[in-house]
């Protein structure tokens, strides 16, 4: 996942590489996701998130739709 100046920059970069459209969202959503994903990584009690927990986190942050679906 990469950070771009704007959606126009994403589109130009993607078209030059013949890549299908991905998902574009805000840096604020990215920060919230990264914070919840990694804040306890140094804890002895850390456990990898289950697909259900990850899906719930995506939805809480507003990352919804088929692109974000972890299971069919």
């Amino acid at each position, binding site marked *: 996942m*990469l950070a*771009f100046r704007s959606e126009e920059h994403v589109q130009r970069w993607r078209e030059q590489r013949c890549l299908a459209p991905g*998902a574009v969202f805000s840096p604020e959503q*990215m920060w919230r996701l990264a914070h919840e994903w*990694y804040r306890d*990584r*140094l804890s002895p009690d*850390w456990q990898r998130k289950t697909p259900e927990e990850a899906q719930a986190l995506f939805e809480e942050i507003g990352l919804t739709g088929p692109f974000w679906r972890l299971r069919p």
Partner: protein
Amino acid sequence: MNDTRVRLHLYERFVADGRPPTAAETAEALGLPTEEAEAAYRRLEEGHVIVLAPGSTDVWMANPLSTVPTPFRVITDDGRSWWGNCVWDGFGVLAMVGADGLVSASCPDCGEPLELRVSGGELEPVDAVVHFAVPAARWWDNIGFT
């Protein structure tokens, strides 16, 4: 049990030293046979906790940290620095160590520098967007490209 000890040691050393310990170094630090530390590294990879360089037990990624330089440099306000694997992981490093700082990247399209700064535990407003190329269900098909 050993896997938790190995994971914690690996991450703690990576954060402190800026590079992950080898399996032999972890074995020595924890009083384990080297073979057991190597097996633990492999189990951690199978569990999608870390990523090893192909054909070895050398750590490539201990997410969110990268052993090799990437376009995502993470610098804390107290002067520590690491590489993140991507913008998610760049932010993840700051979240993991609980520090303010910045993720220094650049727009892949125009090359213009992008500084994403976290201050007081919050992201400062920035004129940028984030792009994921690969749907979530397929991230681990090739974790080096998402």
